[in-house]
């Protein structure tokens, strides 16, 4: 019956995203929030924490925090783009670090699954601190479809 889920319905998308995110301990540990999954471009966010710093002298986030959040957010975008509740696994992921994320400000991750084949979901993401046009980093990733459905 889960194959028949209407994944265009914003309420259903929000419910799936909340369960997906809530079921990932590391997302909970770093406080990753689902902000908007109504459309194809989904948005998550992280509040600033001191333990996220990579360079405390310069007051900059470590790039790896955004990297981990991008992996999760890209995964969620693919999960929402596939029919049913098919499990996925990250195949590969690339980050381009355009400018550093500054301390005391949050980080937003916007991801879009732009193509799905029988085996793979392709996704790209933009990380920013409030201004999408001033991206902190860009991410592209591919996820493998396992063909297995989650049993909720």
């Amino acid at each position: 019956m889960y194959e028949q889920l209407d994944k265009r319905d914003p309420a259903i998308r929000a419910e799936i995203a909340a369960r997906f995110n809530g079921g990932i301990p590391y997302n909970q540990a770093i406080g990753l929030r689902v902000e908007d999954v109504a459309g194809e471009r989904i948005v998550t966010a992280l509040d600033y924490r001191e333990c996220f710093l990579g360079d405390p002298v310069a007051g900059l986030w470590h790039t790896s925090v955004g990297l981990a959040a991008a992996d999760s957010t890209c995964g969620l975008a693919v999960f929402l783009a596939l029919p049913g509740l098919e499990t996925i696994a990250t195949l590969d992921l690339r980050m381009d670090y355009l400018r550093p994320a500054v301390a005391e400000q949050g980080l937003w991750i916007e991801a879009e699954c732009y193509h799905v084949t029988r085996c793979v979901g392709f996704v790209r993401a933009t990380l920013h601190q409030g201004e999408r046009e001033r991206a902190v980093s860009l991410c592209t990733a591919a996820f493998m479809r396992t063909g297995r459905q989650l049993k909720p």
Partner: protein
Amino acid sequence: MSETKEPKPMSSHEDLVAAIPYAAYLDLRIEQADDGQARVYRMPYRDELIGSPRLPALHGGTVASLLELAMQFEVLIAEQQTRIPYPVDFSIDYWRSAAAMDCLCRCRLIRSGRRIAQVQAECWQDDPDRPIAFARADFLLRAVDGDNPAE
């Protein structure tokens, strides 16, 4: 803390990890390999690193974080940098899912020029011959005065 503007090269590996809060958060350890020279970077297992409780498997982002941090430390130590090198880009191939146990990582500094260092890294768990992930990254060396990443 030193009063001088130019920080001294950090001597102990504990100091290095402490200097990067996110590395300290992941409780990263810098160890000497049995064969002598090479450094091994360890991310000790803990429950909050899990990405999939069903398998269970570590979150891919934590493995990627270990690889990126390890390469950053490798450049910092091998090139005796006084400032933390910033990654320019990074990519990772996931080869196997990471089990709920410690992750280990070894790096290879491929090339280091005046401004850019290029590094590769591999991650494994119980068997070094069965790596779980491979990563590569370029780092900006900031020994040159006036390098402001925010510009």
